[in-house]
């Protein structure tokens, strides 16, 4: 007809490898089903339907990930080159999915209270409306689809092969988390404040990520990591763009994992958010963020490593030291674990700085080991409760070991694993990362790492001493056992011990995953 009419041949149909993308698609699909349930299912069925859909989605995605890694050696780019499916990615995705399953157990908790989340987020804290909705027993079941969307973003983030997909994934994982942070049932003002802080700082950091992306696009003419890498080895003249781009991009990435000096959000958000969500952020988000960092630095900027290493050295040292030192002064359990998580971010960065296969496999192992331990630790926190909800203040934990030796013992195990005591997974992880760093020529970094581990051990031990060697208060918190959170604690403890005592199989898995590095 007219010349303006688009012929079908103008745009070739894109090719999506649904089989390889399936884990991501299953999780996002389950999230969409969750939204539909919210829209159409009657209120009384929503909770069970949501839990089942979320469980099925995560388990299905995990099973598919296993199948993918079993079927030959995965080393493909998928979705028109936007996604890289390879050994490390599958390992990270699998880890995220399992940890998300454990966090889901905490999210779905109903024994402690009707739900760990607010009855109605739109009601003003302390208002009559809030009371009414609490009495009516309604719960905000939208948390399940939100959680699944976040997990979907986390799966895409470390797999993203270009910076645009990475940016979109970053937002997909962040937006639900901003929301989830503000939905706590108790101490809602605190929770909302955490959401605002997380949101504002998150948006600020994603602007940096984006400006870095813009400069790299200006340098290389493409945002695909492999193109940038190729441009680095070929092109001359645009180095300032490249270096500024790398620096700004790193700010965005390091913010997500909470490295010093971009860690300020972490303690506030970890403390204010509902503990189930804190567990999710401390495990899955960290794994995903470190996975993204690994991919960007191993694939995109590997040839540039002599330029970014000094900066990362400084960040890693600061992160380890500040995390360990500031944690000593904390009086709130969640806040203390937040600073501990900051310090662990530093240890993970030493693995990134190593930029060798051992570094990659060590980091992968560390991520898995730390993830299980931290989910377990936060699960313990949800179980120690008094009249006002969770007993967060450390002084309330005094003497817990005398009243609930089993639970306190498990918590002590987690703390020892954080400290990196032998026979726990923490030791194996740290050992693997430090060994790789020494091989990669970062011995001073390892010395700082060991030093800060020692500092950190001090406050972990202090908590253990507090729990076992001081007298319990008369009105001390009660421990509420419930099947779901007990299961989360049990799995966390089991994995912590197993990875500590017989780390061989898991280490082997991480090594074989890291064997082929990232696909370009």
């Amino acid at each position: 007809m007219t010349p303006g009419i688009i012929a079908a041949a103008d745009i070739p149909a894109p090719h999506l490898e649904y089989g390889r993308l399936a884990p991501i698609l299953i999780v996002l699909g389950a999230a969409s089903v969750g939204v539909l349930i919210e829209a159409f299912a009657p209120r009384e069925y929503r909770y069970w339907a949501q839990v089942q859909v979320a469980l099925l989605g995560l388990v299905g995605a995990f099973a598919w990930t296993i199948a993918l890694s079993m079927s030959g050696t995965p080393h493909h780019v998928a979705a028109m080159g936007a996604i890289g499916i390879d050994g490390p990615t599958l390992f990270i995705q699998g880890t995220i999915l399992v940890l998300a399953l454990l966090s889901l157990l905490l999210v779905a908790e109903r024994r402690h209270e009707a739900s760990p989340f607010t009855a109605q987020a739109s009601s003003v804290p302390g208002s009559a409306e809030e009371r009414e909705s609490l009495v009516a027993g309604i719960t905000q079941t939208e948390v399940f689809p939100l959680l699944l969307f976040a997990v979907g973003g986390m799966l895409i983030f470390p797999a993203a092969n270009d910076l645009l997909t990475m940016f979109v994934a970053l937002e997909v994982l962040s937006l639900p988390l901003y929301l989830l942070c503000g939905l706590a049932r108790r101490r809602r003002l605190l929770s909302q404040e955490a959401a605002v802080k997380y949101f504002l700082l998150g948006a600020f950091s994603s602007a940096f990520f984006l400006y870095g992306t813009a400069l790299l696009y200006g340098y290389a003419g493409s945002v695909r990591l492999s193109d940038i890498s190729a441009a680095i080895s070929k092109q001359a003249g645009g180095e300032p763009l490249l270096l500024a781009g790398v620096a700004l991009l790193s700010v965005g990435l390091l913010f997500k994992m909470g490295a010093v000096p971009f860690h300020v959000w972490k303690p506030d958000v970890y403390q204010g958010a509902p503990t189930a969500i804190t567990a999710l952020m401390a495990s899955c988000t960290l794994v995903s963020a470190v996975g993204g960092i690994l991919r960007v630095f191993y694939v995109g900027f590997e040839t540039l490593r002599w330029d970014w290493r000094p900066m990362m050295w400084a960040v890693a040292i600061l992160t380890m030291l500040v995390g360990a030192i500031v944690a000593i002064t904390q009086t709130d359990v969640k806040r203390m674990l937040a600073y501990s998580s900051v310090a662990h971010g530093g240890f993970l960065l030493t693995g990134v700085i190593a930029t060798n296969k051992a570094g990659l496999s060590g980091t992968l192992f560390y991520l898995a080991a730390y993830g299980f331990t931290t989910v377990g630790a936060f699960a313990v926190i949800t179980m120690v409760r008094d009249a006002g909800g969770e007993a967060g203040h450390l002084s309330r934990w005094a003497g817990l070991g005398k009243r609930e030796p089993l639970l306190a013992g498990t918590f002590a195990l987690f703390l020892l694993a954080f400290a990196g005591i032998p026979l726990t997974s923490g030791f194996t992880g740290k050992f693997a990362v430090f060994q790789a760093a020494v091989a990669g020529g970062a011995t001073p970094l390892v010395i700082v790492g060991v030093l800060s581990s020692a500092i950190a051990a001090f406050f972990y031990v202090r908590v253990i001493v507090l729990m076992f060697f001081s007298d319990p208060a008369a009105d001390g918190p009660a421990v509420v056992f419930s099947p779901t959170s007990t299961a989360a604690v049990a799995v966390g403890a089991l994995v912590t011990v197993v990875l500590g005592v017989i780390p061989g199989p898991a280490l082997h898995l991480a090594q074989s995953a890291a064997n082929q590095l990232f696909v370009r």
Partner: protein
Amino acid sequence: MSATHVLANGLLAASHTDTCAGKPYGLGAFGCDPWWLVIGKALVIFVFLLLTVLMAVWAERRIIARMQLRPGPNRAGPFGLLQSLFDGMKGALKEDVVPRGVDKIVFFLAPVLAAAPALVSFSIIPFGGIVSIGGHKTPLQLTDLPVAVLLVLAMSSMGVYGFVLAGWSSMSPYSLLGGMRSSAQVISYEIAMGLSFVAVFLFAGSLSTSEIVNAQAHGSAFHFLGMTLHTPSWYVVLLLPSFVIYVFTMMGESGRIPFDLPEGEGELVAGYHTEYSSLKFLMFYLAEYINMATLSALCTTLFLGGYRAPWPITGVWSGANSGWWPVLWFLIKMWMFIFFFVWVRASLPRVRYDQLMKLGWKVLIPASLGWILFVSTVRALRNEKHDMRPVMLVVAALIVILLLVSVIWERVSGKAEAPDGTPEPEPDPMAGGFPVPPLDAPHYHGAGTARANNSAEATRA
């Protein structure tokens, strides 16, 4: 001059210094006019818009009056034609009251922000095909862009600023509420409006107005009883659901009855322009009527074949689409829509705010999304040379089933919600010792007497 040249260049996304020669149709014909012609066209459009507003105000008052069995303005000039001109002059000469406590800067800025974007939109409306002016062959359209229709959307979203800021700067609760309602309403309806364009873009393969009009020139030919006939080519026929959705959103965007909640007299006095008087008030008035004209012209362009003559005329008169004649067809179509606006205003009451939002978000947006899905599926299948008949049958069957299900659902759920059958108490005619007439007696509703009284109209007209 060169600055505007650069801008035009960028917007047309082509350096047309080398494409100017030739191409009679489409985007290639634009950006080649000499400067005097461009300025001339802009001036003509400006004057045309002012005249349209004067005429529309007069026509609206006359038509509504006729519908309400009263004469309407009939003193100033023949048939009262000059009434709106005099009203305008009187309005401009009135005292300009600036209430104490308003935010002065924004208060002055708001009417300008409301009126200026309204004027810009018309620059991409095609009035006709190529004509010859002073020896230059030029299209009867100020300019066209590869994304011309987006310009209208952009300008309407800029226009809202005028209303919102007017509401805010007046520092009065009624104005503020009016401004906020306006912003919520326009944003909501703009989404549905944008979606209603999508099907048109899919069919025309372009976002430029002149190309959309050209795409509606000819339907595909088919043979019937030895005659070559053409399928209807106007998108109002091909894309009827899009058209219907557009008409709804058009009413919503214009902020006129039945969707004039931002200025609802009964609740908000006059909404965002409560505190405005004199020339500033006239600018809001101007903006409203220009918007009405723009929306009508856009509808003509997108759905009614633009400036092209309607089918029976083209069948008998081959010259109907050449020269200056298209302007006539365009004006007829545009005024049809303006008449429609007035007709609706005269017939319908104002809806409630929640009904307005419900219509926008729960009906128009999902409906247009579904329709776009359907249209694009059909287009994709046709592009891949599928046989369309089974597809159409399946879709028709699906629609019928859906309708049936919804009817049954309505029946079932309607029964569930019905009151539980307790009979209404019989009204006691001697309640408390006084005779009480039943409230539905006919004389209470003034049955039989035509009620021309319409206070809302009186205050506005």
